Each structure stands twice: as structure tokens, then as C-alpha cells.
């Protein structure tokens, strides 16, 4: 049957495909026609907005008159949206830092590269990223209240994920522990954090952390927000890891016990390595969620990617181009989140294959 169809000319094959996939029943035909009209309208509108009415050069007044997509706005504001208040002459530094970060992340995505060498690579990258961003050792110093935009969002997310992971493992082990007290501490912590919105934890970091500390000790705002994010995400990570821990068969614990391994040795070399492998796809999903959630630091006035966007919209000269700005930034977020979710799907497939 397939052979017969493939020998037919293109249009006929196309017609068969159409009949099978879009017009197989009367209801489907109606839905298809309706949707086709809808898509046509959408594409037409988008095309007019970007290409026919869109403005490529000129000032804000030209854009307002044309009423289409205002590219000059983006040309003018991209620098601020991406880098925030970072000093003008030094923009190569956050750019390099981002490239190093993305490169290291990209290198780490193959499961067969997860070994000691990778840990060394990460510590070297971390050093270079902070050196480039913060300065010192021959570079002009840039205090972290000047950091902003995409580098800040990427740093908050990466550090949040990396640091919350070990904390999540500890919490998950505590929650599965036979020791009632440790278990209850972990349960209370996880359930409280998962029951409240991230905003409340961020508020806590911005207004309560300073009160918690003894006189004279003070962290800056960025670090406080970072700690809040780590504390928040670790509760979610703990639940993900707990799922992996409980999927390890009991026989493994018993076998390790028979071999005379202590609790810590059992966990370190037998249970956790297996559990982590299983939960990598859901971990990546949690990471996507937290990458999106870093945008909430805007509420406590940190200049992440979304806040720089919002600030650039407040320029009296360029009022009223929100749509352009949000579409642009939305695309940036989308590229990161979408590639992460594709990655998690790929891992899920690969791990699933190996098990068979």
C-alpha cells in the first residue's frame, strides 16, 4: 500500500495526506477549514506587523506613525536589556562569561562526560566567570549591583540549580531516614517551602534576612536573593530525588548491608548514583521551572533580564513599545527553556532505551 502511494505524483500524494489527516470526517473538515482560516489570519497579521508596517530605521516618532514592529527600539535598547547597568567599555567581560557558562553547560550535556574531569572544568569555569564579571587581578572591579540582564539571570539559575542539588539530596535522604526526628525536620521544611509562593521566600530574603543576622554582618541583596532561590528550589529537588531513591529496589540496600558497607558508603557508592541517573529528566524539568522563576527577583528590585526589559520600557522617549520588547525577551527565554526540555526528552529516551 505504501509503495503504491509513494509512486503516485506529488499532488496526488498530498491530496491523500490531506484527506487522511484533515478531512477524514465531516466534523474534522469543518474544524480544519476553521483552523486554516485562523492560521491564515494570524500569519497575515504577523507578516503585516513585522514586514509591511515594520520600521527598520528612524526614531520613535517614525515607529509610532507606522504602527508596525519597531526595530530601532530593539537596536537602541538591546544593550541595556542584555547587560543592564554593566559599565559601557567592559561589555566584552559579561559576554565572555556567558559564553564560558553556556559552553561549559553544553559540554556537560553528554552523560558519558560526567566524571571527575568535568568537576575540574566546572571549578575552572566558575573561577573565570566570577573573575570576568567581578574584576580584580588586573581587571577593573565591577560591584555586583551593576550586574544585570541575561548574565544575571543565567548566573542566578545555574548557581541555584547547582547548589540546591546537594541540599536536595541531604533533604531527600533525611526524609527517607528511619530516624524520626531527622525525618520530621525534613518533612516540615519541604512541605512549608512547597506550600508557599516563591515571592514570599524572596520577600523573606530581602526584608527578613537582614534582621536575622547579628549587628554588623550583612550580605548584599544579590546574594540574599540567591540564597532564597537555593532554599526554595532545594525543597523541590528533594522531592524529585526522593522519587529516584524510592525506585531503587530494596535488594540493593540489603546487598550492600550484607557486604558490610556502612550507611554512608551504601548511599555514596550504590544508591545515590543510580537514583540520580533515574531522576535526571525530572531534574531538568525542575531546572526549567527555576530558570523561569528567576524572573521573580524583579519584585525585589534586582535587574535580571525581565527587569532590564521593563526598565527600558520606561524611557519617556520610547514609550509604548512593550510588545516588541516582550516578544524579544520572550524569545530569549524560550530558546533556553525549549532546548532544556528537548534535552530532557532526549535523555529520557536514551535512558529508557538502555534499560531494555
Amino acid at each position, binding site marked *: 500500500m505504501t509503495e503504491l502511494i509513494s509512486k503516485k505524483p506529488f499532488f496526488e500524494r498530498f491530496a491523500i495526506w490531506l484527506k487522511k*489527516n*484533515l478531512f*477524514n470526517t465531516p466534523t*474534522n473538515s469543518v*474544524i*480544519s477549514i476553521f*483552523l*486554516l482560516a485562523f*492560521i491564515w489570519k494570524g500569519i497575515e497579521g504577523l507578516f503585516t506587523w513585522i514586514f509591511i508596517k515594520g520600521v527598520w530605521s528612524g526614531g520613535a516618532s517614525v515607529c509610532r506613525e507606522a504602527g508596525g514592529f519597531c526595530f530601532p527600539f530593539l537596536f537602541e535598547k538591546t544593550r541595556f536589556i542584555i547587560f543592564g547597568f554593566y559599565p559601557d567599555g567592559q561589555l566584552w567581560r559579561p559576554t565572555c562569561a556567558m559564553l564560558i557558562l553556556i559552553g561549559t553547560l553544553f559540554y556537560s550535556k553528554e552523560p558519558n562526560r560526567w566524571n571527575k574531569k568535568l568537576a575540574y572544568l566546572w571549578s575552572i569555569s566558575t573561577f573565570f566567570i566570577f573573575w570576568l564579571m567581578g574584576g580584580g587581578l588586573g581587571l577593573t572591579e565591577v560591584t555586583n549591583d551593576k550586574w544585570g540582564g541575561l548574565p544575571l539571570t543565567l548566573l542566578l539559575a545555574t548557581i541555584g540549580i547547582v547548589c540546591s542539588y546537594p541540599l536536595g539530596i541531604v533533604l531527600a535522604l533525611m526524609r527517607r531516614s*528511619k*530516624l*524520626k*526526628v*531527622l525525618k520530621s*525536620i525534613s518533612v516540615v521544611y519541604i*512541605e*512549608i517551602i*512547597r*506550600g*508557599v*509562593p*516563591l*515571592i*514570599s521566600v524572596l*520577600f*523573606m530574603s530581602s*526584608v*527578613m534576612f*537582614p*534582621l*536575622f*543576622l*547579628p*549587628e554588623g554582618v550583612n550580605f548584599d541583596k544579590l546574594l540574599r536573593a540567591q540564597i532564597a532561590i537555593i532554599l526554595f528550589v532545594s525543597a523541590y529537588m528533594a522531592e524529585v530525588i526522593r522519587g529516584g531513591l524510592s525506585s531503587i529496589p530494596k535488594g540493593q540496600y540489603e546487598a550492600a548491608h550484607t557486604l558490610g558497607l556502612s550507611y554512608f558508603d551504601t548511599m555514596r557508592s550504590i544508591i545515590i548514583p543510580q537514583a540520580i541517573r533515574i531522576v535526571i529528566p525530572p531534574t531538568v524539568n525542575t531546572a*526549567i521551572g527555576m530558570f*523561569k*522563576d528567576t*524572573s*521573580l527577583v*524583579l*519584585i525585589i528590585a534586582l535587574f535580571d533580564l*525581565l527587569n532590564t526589559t*521593563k526598565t527600558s520600557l520606561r524611557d519617556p522617549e520610547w514609550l*509604548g513599545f*512593550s*510588545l516588541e520588547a*516582550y516578544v524579544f*525577551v*520572550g524569545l530569549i*527565554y*524560550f530558546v533556553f*527553556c*525549549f532546548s532544556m*526540555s528537548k534535552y530532557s526528552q532526549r535523555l529520557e529516551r536514551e535512558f529508557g532505551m538502555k534499560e531494555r
Partner: protein
Amino acid sequence: MLKNFRDEKKRALLIQVLGLFSVFAFIGYLFHNTQMNLAKLNIATGFGFFELEAGFDIGESLIEYWSDDTYLKALGVGILNTLKVAIIGNILAVVLGVLIGLGHLSDNWMLKKICRVYIETVRNIPLLLQLFLWYALLTEGLPAVKEAIEILPSVFLSNRGLNIPSPVDITSFSVSLIVLIFSVIGYFLLDSKRDQLVNETGVESPLWEKLNFLVFLLPIITWALMGASTEFSVPKLQGFNFTGGYNLTPEFAALLFGLVIYTAAFNAEITRAGIQSIPKGQWEASHSLGLSKVDTIKRIILPQSLRVIVPPLTSQVLNLTKNSSLAVAIGFPDFVAITNTTMNQTGQAVECVFLIMIVYLTFSLLTSLFMNWFNKRFAIVER
């Protein structure tokens, strides 16, 4: 000491005592520092501020509120606003999510692709960005009040939101609406009771099937008894704003749109996964038994897939409720926004953050109680 450490029971006790001690010591240390700092800053502690005059206005409220009311009342207004968004938003998000999830399973190629694109786009963009986008569209994208668009007779859309006619007799209208909701529930209860009777006795009673619909007379009767008022207050342009009718503010609309569209994408994935978790053989088996597609879904597929769908769906319901706290960023006076104002005015940060946490923890506690009930009620009964 070392000998004790080798004894498993004693070691466990030691670790637990140490754990408990360090947690309490840590909390005590933070508490002590906080007390010292507050005393130094001259900030009052406790919930005494509840009785003080709030002194700020709230844009929209379900109950009557003036700026000389107390903080307690202002916070109450906030909780009601949060509940308003959460309840309406969750109903819409579940309905839209289920529809899109079903659309994703349709055999229509184009519908499937559109649903996929919707889910992927919406899930991969931060909710806060989407809220800002909706708010910008609703305020900048729409004309000023003077040039408001009349989309339907007496329904005006402008950058001040949507103005719709509202019934003059609000009480009778809302009571009838509540009765209507109960009669929908009652209808389904009666329907399942009828099913049960048919299953037990094997006798179909067509009369009952018809009489079920009589439940829907109840709201009409209520409305008639309460005066059958048909008078509507219509929005009219007067000066710079509309008078009369009901105003759906752009803040509320943006928050609602954003939350519904975002959460619906997750709900759609849950629905799709739940329905796909039922083996294909079940569809085929019920088809060969001669059941119609509707009956297959209603009696075979749905009861089984609900078991898979409801737990993650409840957590999405909770997520929407928690995410409604983003209202503070677009200026809708939800609980967090009002607590934030209170915090800035009184300086009592500890109490305010504590309040936010308690309120949301209560919501999540109620949700998990529902979950436990549901799991007990619908768990697979094994023979």
C-alpha cells in the same frame, strides 16, 4: 563515648538529639538577632497593627472597603481577591486545559499541531513575562475611554478594562447563580445515582432521565421568588470614565488571562498523559462491545484516567493559586500585594511574611486534604 557510637540504637538517639538541638539553637539564634535588631530599629512586634487604620485605598474589592478601615479588613479584602482569581482562574484553566489536551489527541493533524505549539510556547516563557505582556496589550493596545470599542451592545472595551452591564439586584442574581452551581452538581449526583440503580436492577427508567433536568428549574424558581428583577445597570460614558455596570479592570483581566493560559498548558499535558495512559486495547474492547464513543469515554476511559490525572492536576490548581501572588507585579490588589503595602507602612516585615506563608500554607493544606480524600475514594479497589 566511642563505644556508644558503635551501638546502633544509641547512635541513632545521639544523632537525633543533636539534630533537634541544632535546629532549635539555629532558630533561637535567628530569633534572638531579630529581637535585638527590631528593638534597635524601634519597630513594634506582634499583631497589634491589625486594629490600626490602614490609610490606603484598594482598587477593587468584593466587600465594601474605605481607606479609614483597619489593616485587618484590608488584608481580608486581599484574601477575597486572591480567592476570586484562584477560583475563577482554576475553573477556566481546567476547562481550557482539558479541551487542549483532548485537541492534542485528536486525529486532526492541524488541531494536534496547534495544540502542541500552544503548549510548548506557553510552558517555556516565564509567567511573569506573560502577565506583563497581557497587561501591556490590555492597557497600551486598547483605545482610551473616549474611543472605547463597543464589542457587543453595551459592552465596552477600553484601556480601563471591560465594562459590562450588571443586574441592579446583585443579591438575587448571585444567590440564583450559586443555586445554579449547586443544581449542576445535583444533576451529576442524580445521574450517577440513576446509573447505580440501573446497574443494580437492570431496569432503565427513561422517566428519571428526563426528570433529572428538572433540577435546573431550581435557580429560575429562586430568581422568581426573589423578585424576578430584570433591571440592568448599563455602562455609560460620563466625563472621563464609565458609570454604571460592572467594570472588569485591566489588572484583573491580565492576571486572569495570564494565569489561565499558562496553567492550561500544564493541565493539557496532564490530561493528554492521563488519557494516553489507558491502553489502546480498552478502546478496542469497548468498541467491540458496541459502546458508543461517548459511552466509552464516560464509562471506561475517564474513570480510569482520572486516577492518573487528578493528583498532578491538584498540584496545578495549587500552583495557580500560588502564582496568583504575582499580581503584586501588575498592580492587582491580591493578598500579597496588600500585605506588601502593609509591610512597607508598618515596617513589621516578620509578621507580614509570616502571614503570607500561613495563608498559602492553609490553601495547600486544604488541597492536600482533598487529595487524600480523592485517593481514598477512587483508589483501585482490588479484589
